[in-house]
């Protein structure tokens, strides 16, 4: 066996050198071929060393990704980025998702909606920009009123403060939740005592509300105006998943 291992190691070294030489010469095609060979050699090496094929164990998944995101968004109560949703899910629901798995989620939802409109009790959908296009990297729930799903200039901040309040007001707080709250609180004036100790949730919520009051009027106005436009100009699908471009709006209006 050790002969075999030596051979493999030699082969792996050669292949690695080959790949790196090819990469330095920016010869992508050749590098790809060599890389594939290299991976299989490496797998063989792993198998020999550990005596078995490394099978990555998937943790038992009780709740679907979709449902975990839903839970997270419901808790937050405002449009949020995948990173925050994942953090909330991990902190409060023992969630297991990683933000990379959320990238295709919105498209899947849209496909599902198009094939069977309103076939599900909720959809994970887009937040809408002032052009009524989908806002990059923000998720919302179809069950929310349009005002909550549109983003005016102040909305990102308002949503962040809303989320912070929601996190602060959770009853159960373990270490992970504390860390999440601290991270948010540090970006809200007056929410922490300036140290790294877990912040007082009441104080965080109070501080967030105080700042929220500064923005509330204008943001509410902006959102109402946007929501009105969205309701008037967008069809069902676009209202949930955003209008792709200006031309889409025209087309949808025409039909």
């Amino acid at each position, binding site marked *: 066996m050790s002969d075999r291992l030596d051979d493999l190691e030699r082969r792996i070294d050669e292949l690695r050198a080959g790949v790196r030489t090819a990469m*330095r010469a920016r010869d992508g095609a050749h590098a790809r071929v060599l890389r594939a060979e290299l991976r299989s050699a490496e797998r063989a090496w792993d198998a020999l060393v550990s005596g078995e094929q490394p099978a990555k164990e998937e943790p038992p998944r009780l709740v679907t990704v979709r449902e975990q995101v839903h839970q997270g968004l419901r808790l937050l109560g405002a449009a949020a980025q995948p990173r925050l949703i994942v953090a909330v899910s991990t902190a409060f629901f023992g969630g297991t998702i990683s933000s990379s798995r959320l990238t295709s989620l919105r498209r899947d939802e849209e496909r599902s909606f198009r094939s069977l409109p309103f076939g599900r009790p909720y959809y994970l959908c887009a937040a809408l*920009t002032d*052009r009524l*296009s989908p806002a990059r990297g923000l998720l919302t729930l179809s069950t929310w009123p349009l005002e909550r799903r549109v983003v005016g200039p102040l909305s*990102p901040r308002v949503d962040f403060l809303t989320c912070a309040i929601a996190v602060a007001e959770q009853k159960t707080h373990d270490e992970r939740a504390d860390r999440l709250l601290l991270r948010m609180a540090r970006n809200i*004036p007056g929410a922490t005592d300036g140290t790294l100790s877990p912040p007082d949730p009441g104080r965080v919520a109070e501080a967030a509300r105080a700042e929220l009051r500064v*923005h509330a009027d204008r943001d509410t106005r902006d959102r109402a105006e946007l929501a009105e436009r969205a309701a008037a100009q967008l069809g069902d699908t676009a209202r949930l998943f955003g209008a792709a471009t200006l031309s889409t709006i025209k087309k949808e209006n025409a039909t």
Partner: protein
Amino acid sequence: MSGLKREGDHAHRLEALRGTTPQQPHDARAIAALAANPGCARRALMDGAGVDKDAAARHLGFPAPFGQSPFAITRGNVFEALVKADGCAELLRMLRELLGLTVAEVAYHDVENVGAHLRHAHTRTLIDRAARDGHDAGTLYDHPLLSLEIAGHTAYLEPDVVAFQLGGRFHIVEIKSFAVIDGQADPSAVAAAARQAAVYVLALRTLLEELGHDPLKVSHDVVLVCPENFANRPVASLVDVRRQLAVLRRQLTRMTSLDRLLEELPEDLTFDLRPDEDGRPTRPVAELGDALRRTTARYAPDCLSTCDMCFFCRDEARQEGASDLLGRQVRDELGGVASVTEALGLADGTRDPAEGQEEIARLLRNAERLRGECLA
């Protein structure tokens, strides 16, 4: 009239130098790098003509020794996302702490919402509105797209964020993932960031000027955001880029005055790589090498960290036995003596000094005598 004609010729000559190779677009980093070795005619011509130096060096068999680790790239992306997360919550905190931004100022515009093709126009509109409306304008502009004319070509530039409403002035925000530890960062990394940010400042000032606003509404202090100490937490510092701006202006002026260099070139000279349909260069390597060697390089060891052509030029310097190989300081110390054998010949007396070399010859002979005496 003749000026116009010359300008046309000039552009035409540069096109010819590039040949069928696609124009290499300048990004902020490339523009900032123009100042790395302005005395190098080879580089000035390649940059001016928009030749892809990296591709040329590879084709010549001298690929540049630069590469970025995937770990560093990931780290950079993750950090930028963190700074911009949740409506730029971290950025707002820092601007409030560092520049006294008021709590009410939080309006966020993602310029990219309009789609890639409209980004530049939308940036113009938003910046125009901000400069005009003053206090009612937005605070943060994410993913803006600016432009700058470089030697007759438009370069598109993507600053990380433009912040407004800090004392009524625009600030360029530059997000970098090198660490600031106890208030200090790697000075060469900061310098590179400052040079890059200066390009954005200039582009934004140019835009304001075009729109009829005061270009000085763009601050020469840029906001540099980096991770603090060993954590991911961002920290902002103000960096004064006035010096970098002055250097940049000088270099851009030089770019438009390549005439002298162009005039010295043979009519038929071209750096064309003759790419095939897949973009692979087909020009015989020796031919390309010869073409490049007809321009004068000014190799210095610093090129090894700043120029794609460095290994090619180093090889050339080796073949010529140029004392440039040993660094600018050695070269300077040797006065006018450029070649290694010449210097050694003067040192051991096998070569008589030419006119004007008496001095360095005396010094070298003295040095040679001392070395001989001490090592005997």
